[in-house]
């Protein structure tokens, strides 16, 4: 399955980018433009949440990781993978955004 594109913003001047929509680049204060990034990346680091915050009680244990997009910014999101099958360097694909959270799954 091909990864879904991930929408975000990029600064036309200094090329700072983020998945989270803001109006202004925090580094050079230039107005950013909306863009999209190919949703393919690698896990930089991850954890398994076993004691979740309020609202996530039924989902634990679940994996959260920092993901370095191949052609885009570094992001944080949920990884829909069994805890024993995740590792640093694992290639993941963006699948969807739910309630403000990015969701990824392992690339087959």
């Amino acid at each position, binding site marked *: 399955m091909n990864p879904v594109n991930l929408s975000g913003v990029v600064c036309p001047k200094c090329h700072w980018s*983020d*998945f*989270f929509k803001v109006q202004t680049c925090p580094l050079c204060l230039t107005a950013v433009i909306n863009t999209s990034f190919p949703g393919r990346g690698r896990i*930089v*680091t*991850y*954890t*398994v*949440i*076993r*004691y*979740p*915050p*309020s*609202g*996530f*009680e039924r*989902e634990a244990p*679940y994996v*959260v*990781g*920092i993901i370095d997009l191949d052609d885009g910014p*570094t*992001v*944080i*999101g*949920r990884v829909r993978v069994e*805890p024993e099958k995740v590792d*640093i360097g694992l290639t993941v694909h963006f699948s969807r955004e739910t*309630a*403000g*959270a*990015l969701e990824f799954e392992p690339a087959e």
Partner: protein
Amino acid sequence: MSMSGVAVIGVGMTPISSTSDKSLTELFVQAAKEAIDNAGVDRVDAMYVGNMMSGFLQHQEHLGPLMASALGKEGVPTYKVEAACASGGVAMNVGVKAVLSGLDKIVVVGAVEKMSGYSTPEVTTGLMMAEDRLRVATSGVTFVGLNAMIAREYMHRFKVSHEIMAELPVLCHENALDNPKAQFHKRITVSDVLKSPLVADPLRLYDCSGIGDGAAVVILTSTEEARKFTDTHVEVAASSVASDTLSLYQRKDITMFRASRKAANEAYERSKLTPADIDVLEVHDAFSVLGLMALEDLGFAQKGKGAQLLVNGECNRDGRLPTNTFGGLKARGHPVGASGMYQIAELTLQLSQHAEKCQVPDPSIGLAQSIGGIGSTVAVHILRRT
């Protein structure tokens, strides 16, 4: 700016407990009365109260007048200082600046946190308020989880085993045995750490500080004024605060905290001291990995080599760099917003030779590092006996 003008003339600390029946106000008043008695002052010109979660957990804000009036000091200017887990450290920085301004002579600086009596998901949600709500908390990551991601990367990159990382909680629990105010009085081994339940992989229960209630307060005044009250002078050699991005994912290197390095470098520069001058150290070991990074970020070890100091026994109370001498956040306890103030109170006791069973031999310079959020705020203080 020289920081030679501020003295710590009194300290007070409540015991830290997860079964306390005391309210937020009772905790603060207990520590503040102890500090005021200890200093022997009869007037207060200003009061600073550090705290992180009273609004969320106790539905109580406006702690300044709340605490001042409970102490019978209504009328004085009061300020609440919030910087997540560094609230205590940052309150100290603000109090130091108040004395340096010359406008306030006798300043009460304290910090308090009440975390017990709430469900784990509630406290977990409260702690995540130190990170970005809209960018990061939406993923369901917890504060332990963010630190666990740091630990994973740190252990992977520097080939640090969990056995070695566990040396810090073991040392903290050992030191806390001699601290009657510590939350945990229980000797643990490396094997206990490795066998304890996973909280957020790879961090286990004994890698993490617990949930507890406590308050610590110090009394500050100018060094000239201090001579009226005490013969043992402990003065603030440097007080520095630095910040970084609020979110961990936005940083290029998550195995160090830029804010720690910046605050420490500024503190060394201002005090004209170096890491080699530090006789006693208090680091923000909310999670084991943070203690190792602190030893590196504060200039005591090369990157990835912090644990070597522990393995060599240098951080023991009889070592070259006694660290977390009252048990640190891990075993003395971590009532989050108050921990930075416990560190200042403990260093003051060490430097004035009042640390009793926790005393290290004849220290003259101490450093405390207090971290807010995921390294987003760091306060570094250097205290000196004069």
